[in-house]
C-alpha cells in the first residue's frame, strides 16, 4: 500500500478550532506521518477557496486520499465528499477528523491537551484512510407516492400540497374523522376567524381529491424499507358500518339509545354509541363504538341496523390490513394536552369550575355542548369573573420545561371572547411572561389589554374551592407589587401545555426516529433541516416536531410536503455505498450473520457446492452488526473494515 498519497487539511474554523487547538502544530506533526504528502491548515476549509485548494491539490499533487480535520462529519462530510468527487476522487476516499465538536469546543480551557488530542484524532483518520476503498452509491427507483400519518391540519396541508403536485397520497388517521384539534377550536387567534370555517373546506378537499386516498379510523402498524421504497402495513379498524353504503344521514344515531360522553367535546357533552365525532366529519361515515354498543355488550338492541335504510350496518365487520407502497412518509401526528390533574394544587378534575383551555373552546363553540354559551360546569350560570392560569405543565421542570408557545395567545383570545360575551365580567390572566411573538400577536395583546382584561404577573400558587357556591379562590403573588393576594373567581381556565402524543414512542420504534429531550420527534437539524428526520425519506409536519400554533403547523406541514416532493419528483435516489460484502471463499455457512441481520439482507446461497451467505445490497443498511458477529471474518463492512478500525484504534492511542 505504498502508493497512498494522502493530503491532510486542518481547518481553523475561524477561531472555533484555532482558538483552542494549535492547528499549525497539528499540521506539522501530521506532515511527518508515512504516506502524508501534504498537511495544510486554513481559515475556513468549507469555504469556496478552501474547497478549491483541496480540489487543486487532488489534481496537482495526485492525492488519492483526503483528510479534512474540522467540524463533525455529520456537518460537512457531504460537502467535502462532493468537492473530492468534483476533482475526480471517489468520495469515500475522504475521511474527516472531528476536532471541533469533539475537541476544541469541549476543551476550551485546556489548549495543550486539546492539541495533543487533535493530533491523535487526525492521525487516526490518516491511519484509517489507508484502508478506505472507493465505493459506489447505489441508485434505486422511487415510488411516486407518499404516506401521511395524522389527519389534523398539518396532515391535511401536507396531503393537499403533495396531491396537488400530482403525487399519490395515502392519509392515515387514527380516529373516525380527520380534522384533529383544530376542529375542536372555536375562533383562532389573532384574526378571530372561525376555526371550522377555515378548516372544513380543506377537509372536504381531502375527501374529493383524486390523488388522495383517505384511510380514517386506521393505524399504521409497521413500516419497512427505505427512502423511495417504503412498505407500510395499515390496520383499518372495523367501524361496523359499511363505508361504501353509509350515506351519513344520521338516522342510526337518532335511534341509538346509548348516550356516552363525547371525546370530541372532552366529555362536556354526549354522543351516541353509533356516531360521527362532529357534524362536519370527513369521511361522513358512522362508527359503532364497540365498548358501549348494546349489541356488542348484551347482544340486544340492533336499532341502528333496523333503521338504516341503506343496510350499511355490519356487526360482523373485521379489522382489515392494507399494505401501501410509498416513496416518502410525513409524520403529522400532532400533540396531546398536558393532564392538568398532575398539578394537584389547581384542583383540575376535582373542582368542577376549573377547566382547561380546550374545554373552554368547546364551551364557547356554537356547535359545542352549551351551544356556545360559556357557562360554568357546576351550576350552568354565566361567570362574572374568570381567571386564566398560564403555564400549567409548561415552563415547569416538574412537568415540561419547554414553553408550549400557544397558551399565551389562546388565553388572550379566550379572555377576549369572555369580554365579548360578558362585557361586565372581570377577567384576569395570571402569567409569568406574556409571549406574543407572532405576526399580529403583540397587537392582539394590546387590544385585549384595552378591553379591560387584567394582567397579573404571578404564577398562581394554588386554587381553593368554596364548598358552598363552588367559587374558586386563587392564591397568588402580584410580583410587580410584591403583594400576596387571594381573589375569588367563578371560573378558572388552565392554560395547559402541549405534550407529545401518548403513542409517540410506538411510531418512534416503527420508524426508528429520534426524539428530543422534550419527547417530540427530533428534526435532522434544528435550523437548516427542520422538517427532515434522521431517516431519509421521513419528514415531520406540524406539532409532532414541537408545540406549534396553526400558522406554524401549516407552514411546517407545507415545508415537509415540499421536502418530500424532492425524492418523489426525482424518480430515483442514491443510497449510501457503505454496505456489507461477503468473501465467499472464507464463508463457512454458519448462518450467524443471517440471524443477526434485522433487515433480512443476508440470504444463504449455494456456491460451488457449499452454502454461503450473500448480501442483498438494497436491503443492507450498513450497520455492520453482521461483520462483528462473523466468526470467520468473511464479512467485510465497507468503509468500516476490521483493518481500518484496528488501524484507527492503534493510531489514536499512540501517544
Amino acid at each position, binding site marked *: 500500500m505504498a502508493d497512498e498519497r494522502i493530503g491532510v487539511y486542518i481547518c481553523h474554523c475561524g477561531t472555533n478550532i484555532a482558538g483552542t487547538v494549535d492547528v499549525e502544530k497539528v499540521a506539522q506533526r501530521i506532515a511527518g506521518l508515512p504516506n502524508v504528502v501534504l498537511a495544510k491548515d486554513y481559515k475556513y476549509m468549507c469555504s469556496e477557496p478552501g474547497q478549491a485548494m483541496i480540489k487543486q491539490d487532488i489534481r496537482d499533487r495526485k492525492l488519492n486520499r483526503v483528510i479534512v480535520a474540522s467540524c463533525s462529519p455529520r456537518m460537512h462530510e457531504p460537502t467535502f465528499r462532493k468537492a473530492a468527487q468534483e476533482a475526480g476522487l471517489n468520495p469515500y476516499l475522504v475521511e474527516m477528523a472531528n476536532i471541533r465538536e469533539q475537541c476544541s469546543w469541549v476543551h476550551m480551557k485546556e489548549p495543550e491537551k486539546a492539541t495533543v488530542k487533535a493530533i491523535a484524532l487526525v492521525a487516526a483518520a490518516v491511519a484509517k484512510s489507508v484502508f478506505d476503498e472507493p465505493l459506489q452509491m447505489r441508485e434505486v427507483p422511487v415510488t411516486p407516492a407518499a404516506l401521511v400519518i395524522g389527519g389534523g391540519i398539518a396532515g391535511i396541508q401536507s396531503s393537499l400540497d403533495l396531491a396537488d403536485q400530482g403525487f399519490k397520497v395515502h392519509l392515515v388517521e387514527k380516529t373516525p374523522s380527520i380534522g384533529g384539534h383544530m376542529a375542536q377550536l372555536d375562533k383562532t387567534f389573532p384574526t378571530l376567524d372561525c376555526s371550522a370555517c377555515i378548516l372544513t373546506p380543506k377537509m372536504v378537499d381531502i375527501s374529493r381529491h383524486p390523488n388522495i386516498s383517505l384511510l380514517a379510523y386506521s393505524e399504521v402498524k409497521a413500516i419497512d424499507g427505505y427512502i423511495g421504497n417504503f412498505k407500510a402495513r395499515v390496520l383499518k379498524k372495523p367501524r361496523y358500518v359499511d363505508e361504501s353504503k353509509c350515506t351519513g344521514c344520521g338516522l342510526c344515531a337518532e335511534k341509538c339509545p346509548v348516550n356516552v360522553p363525547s371525546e370530541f367535546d372532552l366529555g362536556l357533552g354526549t354522543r351516541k354509541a353509533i356516531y360521527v365525532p362532529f357534524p362536519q366529519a370527513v369521511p361522513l361515515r358512522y362508527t359503532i363504538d364497540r365498548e358501549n354498543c348494546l349489541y356488542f355488550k348484551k347482544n340486544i338492541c340492533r336499532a341502528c341496523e333496523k333503521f338504516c335504510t341503506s343496510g350499511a350496518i355490519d356487526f360482523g365487520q373485521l379489522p382489515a390490513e392494507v399494505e401501501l407502497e410509498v416513496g416518502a412518509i410525513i409524520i403529522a401526528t400532532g400533540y396531546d394536552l398536558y393532564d392538568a390533574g398532575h398539578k394537584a*394544587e389547581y384542583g383540575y378534575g376535582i373542582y368542577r369550575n376549573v377547566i382547561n383551555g380546550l374545554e373552554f373552546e368547546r364551551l364557547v363553540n356554537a356547535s359545542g355542548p352549551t351551544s356556545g354559551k360559556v357557562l360554568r360546569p357546576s351550576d350552568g350560570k354565566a361567570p362574572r369573573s374568570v381567571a386564566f392560569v398560564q*403555564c400549567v405543565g409548561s*415552563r*415547569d*421542570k*416538574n*412537568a415540561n420545561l419547554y414553553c408550549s408557545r400557544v397558551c399565551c395567545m389562546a388565553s388572550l383570545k379566550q379572555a377576549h371572547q369572555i369580554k365579548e360575551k360578558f362585557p361586565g365580567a372581570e377577567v384576569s390572566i395570571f402569567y*409569568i*411572561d406574556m409571549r406574543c411573538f407572532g405576526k399580529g400577536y403583540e397587537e392582539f395583546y394590546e387590544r385585549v389589554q384595552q378591553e379591560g382584561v387584567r394582567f397579573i*404577573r*404571578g*404564577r*398562581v*400558587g*394554588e386554587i381553593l374551592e368554596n364548598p358552598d357556591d363552588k367559587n374558586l379562590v386563587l*392564591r*397568588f*403573588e*402580584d*410580583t410587580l407589587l*410584591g403583594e*400576596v393576594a*387571594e381573589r375569588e373567581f367563578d371560573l378558572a381556565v388552565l392554560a395547559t401545555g402541549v405534550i407529545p402524543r401518548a403513542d409517540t414512542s410506538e411510531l418512534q420504534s416503527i420508524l426508528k426516529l429520534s426524539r428530543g429531550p422534550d419527547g417530540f420527534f427530533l428534526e435532522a437539524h434544528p435550523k437548516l433541516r427542520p422538517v427532515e428526520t434522521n431517516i431519509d425519506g421521513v419528514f415531520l409536519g406540524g406539532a409532532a416536531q414541537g408545540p406549534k400554533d396553526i400558522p406554524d403547523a401549516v407552514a411546517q406541514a407545507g415545508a415537509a410536503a415540499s421536502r418530500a416532493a424532492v425524492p418523489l419528483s426525482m424518480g430515483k435516489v442514491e443510497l449510501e455505498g457503505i454496505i456489507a460484502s461477503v468473501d465467499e471463499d472464507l464463508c463457512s455457512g454458519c448462518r450467524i450473520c443471517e440471524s443477526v441481520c434485522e433487515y433480512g439482507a443476508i440470504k444463504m446461497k449455494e456456491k460451488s457446492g457449499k452454502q454461503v451467505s450473500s448480501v442483498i445490497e438494497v436491503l443492507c443498511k450498513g450497520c455492520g452488526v453482521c461483520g462483528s458477529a462473523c466468526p470467520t471474518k468473511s464479512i467485510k463492512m465497507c468503509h468500516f473494515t476490521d483493518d481500518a478500525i484496528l488501524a484507527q484504534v492503534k493510531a489514536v492511542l499512540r501517544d
Partner: protein
Amino acid sequence: MKDSKANRVPSWNLAKEVMSRGARIYPLEDLNTLYECVQCGTCVGSCPSGRRTALRIRSMIRGIQMGYREEVLDTNDLWSCTTCYTCQERCPRDVRVTEIVKIVRNIAFEEGRAKERHLVVANNFIKTGHTIPLNEEGKKTRVKLGLSPVPPTSLLFPEALAEIQEIMRTDGFYNKVIRDKK
C-alpha cells in the same frame, strides 16, 4: 441599608457563598437551581407565612441572586418561614427554596444574627441534649402512665450528653452559641 439602593452593584458573591456552604450538606446540582429562578411568584402565592408576615420568599431569592447581603441576612422575615416546603414543592424551576432558607439562616446565625429566643433552644440542647427541659410535672405524668420517670435519653445517660458536647466543641457549634450568648 448602608448604601442607597440606587448605587448598589449586583454580585454573585452571596449566591456563591450559599452554594458553597450548602453543598456540604445538599448536592450542589440541586442548589444550583437557585440560578434558574424566574421570579414567577408561585412560592409567595403558596406561602402560608407570607399571608401574615412580610416574608416574600421570591424577593429573598432575588436578593441572593443580586448579592444584596444585608437585605437578605438582616431581615426578620428570614425567621418567619415554617419550612413547610410548599413553595419548594410547587416551584416550576425546582429551586430548593426551603433548603436555601436554612442555609441563609446558617450564615446569619454564624454572624450572630439569631434571635435571643432561638438561643434559649440552642442552650437547652447543649446543656441537656434536648430542646426543652424535663420538669417535675412531666416526670409525674410519665410515672402515672407507666413510663420510667426519666426517658432513656441523654437525660438518663450522662455519658451520652458528654458525647454530644464533645462533638459540638469539636465542630464549633458550641462556640457559635456561646459567643452569641454574649
